[in-house]
């Protein structure tokens, strides 16, 4: 099963779609999860997820605001999407009945 940060990264990359690359994913994680995301944590996790076949990466275009440096683009693979769905379902199930999860049925199959 995925780790928490792996799930955050895959979800952020999935939300960003074709615009998913290092800086954008980092910003997405920091703004939605409201937690600090270091470059070290981001890139070691990207490497690990790529090694597991859950994401694929390639070098993209460079832009002036990046000082002419290329982006490392990220795409979630089918296997990665299934792993994220499994994590999400497990979190929903385990949260059922918890006081902070009122009105949550935990049923994601609908």
């Amino acid at each position: 099963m995925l780790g928490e940060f792996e799930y955050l990264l895959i979800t952020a990359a999935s939300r960003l779609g074709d615009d998913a690359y290092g800086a954008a994913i980092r910003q997405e994680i920091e703004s939605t999860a409201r937690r600090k995301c270091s470059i070290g944590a981001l890139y070691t996790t990207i490497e690990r997820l790529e090694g597991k076949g859950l994401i694929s990466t390639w070098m993209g275009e460079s832009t002036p605001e990046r000082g002419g440096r290329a982006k490392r683009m990220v795409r979630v693979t089918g296997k990665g999407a299934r792993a994220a769905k499994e994590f999400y379902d497990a979190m929903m199930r385990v949260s059922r009945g918890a006081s902070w999860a009122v009105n949550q049925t935990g049923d994601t199959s609908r």
Partner: protein
Amino acid sequence: MSPAWSLVEVAARPLNREERDAILGDSLEAGENTWQALCGVLGLIARRQLLLWKSWRPWLSVFGFGIPCTVLLMAVSMSVTCTFDRLMGFKVSHWAPTGHEGFTLLLCHIFLLIAWSWTTGFTLGSLSPRTLWVNASLGGFLAFFFARHLLDMLGVSRFAPFLFLLPAIWGIRQSLRGIRLSFRPAVLLATTMAVLMTAAWTNEALWLPNWLLIIPALFLVATRSGMPGTGEASARVSQAR
């Protein structure tokens, strides 16, 4: 580009070019200052190094080969220097590590020193190239200890314990350049070393712990034994690093 940013660029050198581009570009795009970018780069490099140590390879490289072989090779280097001095008629200390051997056994020892050093260097370079700096740092510390505490007592040159360095660095460089030792040359090298060590041993010119110095050569034979002569076994080994 500010001069301070050059520091970040230098710190990012250990990363490969594409990764360096991506990370420094991300830092610039996020508007990070030099300090934040430097912490990010150093944090990534530190994490990478820590992850390397989850494998058995760096541990074997440092504690199985690096430290024990460095100590033994420094002792052999001193012994060769002192024996040479004695045979050439130079004054050697009473404590100097030299035996009764003549020129023939000295030549045998010189060949063995080169072979032991080269195989150790080659093995270290093949096993875990990204943690070689740990071997180098610990080797430097041992050298400092040797030079500080033993050399004055033995009355030998400060360079004497480091004769092994050149062939060892040669071995490391060859493995880092991707040169692969196939099965047959590895067996030939290990056999030659074993024969010469036996000859030295029977002439009471080999210290018992020096038998450990054949282990890197045997390791090279073992890791190349999968597919004789093709070098594919070594290719597998390097992929697994």
